[in-house]
């Protein structure tokens, strides 16, 4: 977990210490409020899925993109409305970005998950269940 927190701090400039983070399976991380984490009850699940380990860092969920994106100092990409509509259909977007890696996607005040930029295109990491069907 400390590795993840350090990555978020370094890559986006965001400190998540105000929240509780829990591991879910080998690769996934969930986020919830400290109060909800401290409540004693036998649960099925708590909070929301935040991120998943990937070779190039972490895939950030749509919800994660809000929580992190609102405070992020870097690695956020703003799309035009036309690009945003295509992004929400699950398409990759051709853009020019400063460096390779994970970017949070934004349209106006709205966050729309994350993508991986390989130097040419921003690969769409939004799960299919959260995209718009044609």
């Amino acid at each position, binding site marked *: 977990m400390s590795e993840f927190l350090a990555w978020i701090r370094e890559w986006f400039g965001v400190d998540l210490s105000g929240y509780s983070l829990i591991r879910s399976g080998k690769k996934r991380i969930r986020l919830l409020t400290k109060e*909800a984490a401290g*409540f004693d009850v036998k649960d*099925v699940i708590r909070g929301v899925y935040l991120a998943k380990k990937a070779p190039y860092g972490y895939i950030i969920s749509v*919800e994660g993109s809000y*929580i992190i994106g609102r405070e992020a100092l870097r690695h956020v990409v703003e799309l035009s409305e036309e690009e945003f509509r295509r992004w929400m259909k699950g398409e990759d977007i051709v853009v020019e970005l400063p460096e390779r890696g994970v970017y949070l996607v934004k349209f*106006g005040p709205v966050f729309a998950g994350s993508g991986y930029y390989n130097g040419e295109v921003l690969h769409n990491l939004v799960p299919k269940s959260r995209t718009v069907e044609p």
Partner: protein
Amino acid sequence: MSDGIPEGLIKPEFERRYRKLLGEEYDILLSFMARKPTPSIRLNPMKVDPGWLVAKLEESGWVLEPIPWYEYGYRVRKGPERLGNTEWHQLGLYYVQEAASMIPPVALSPSPGERVLDLAASPGSKTTQLSEMMRHEGVLVANDVTPDRVDALIANIQRMGSINVIVTLSDGRRAPQFFGEEKFDKVLLDAPCSSLGEVRRSWGALARWSPKSINKIAKLQLSLAKAAYRVLKKGGVMVYSTCTLEPKENEWVVYNLLKLGAVLEEPQLEGLRWRPGLERWMDWEFGSELRKTMRIYPQDNDTIGFFVGLLRKPM
């Protein structure tokens, strides 16, 4: 669903009872039941500035009308066919929710920082609304007994970003054993019911209606209500709601909670037309206190039918 209820769907006993309940308004109720309600959405203020989203939707040709009793609720007079397949829906900026279904959380009125239980929570329309009303502060436990339905609950909590919610899977009738006695400041029991109020969305409930099935479900509702009352702290409040108009599933259940010492309060909702609960029905004398419960008829606000009772546990 076309206009007009199919021939033979209404059982004679149903007609007898509902004519007695509604008098001259019986036919008006039926005519409303035969029409689909206007779809509505609830905006998520924790993810987006509601003003920005309303402007964006209107810019794309949607016609929205505010729902008076919940500040983030809107009827969609004109909009896309599939409200669940837009960018904004997929990002969790709104939830497609019937206007009447927004009433129980408003009646419960949870505050940030409280400990709240939603005992029959799936698929989470009201859970996610409660979480937003709490501004993600405090703890909200969302429970259901059906594993399949819990999956839908989890997906909706995720989509709406409800980070103060804990999901549990248990039979609500055993809530005191599962959660402990007097644990919560507020409890919502949006009970499983015969869904008569939902007839506007599907005929199924009308086809299934029978006095026997109602008695059976009322028994389950009362067990759930008693369990919900036990996990409520002294001084705490609870909402009992159903999407049916059956007195046995509504006033009868609340009446039995009053016998345990619960005290009824009148919910405060802006711009909502409602009828007072029944003082008597068939052989039961519920008493005038029951007038503080709300019967929400489809014809009064153009919603599905609902029943809401707000109860306090004395200190």
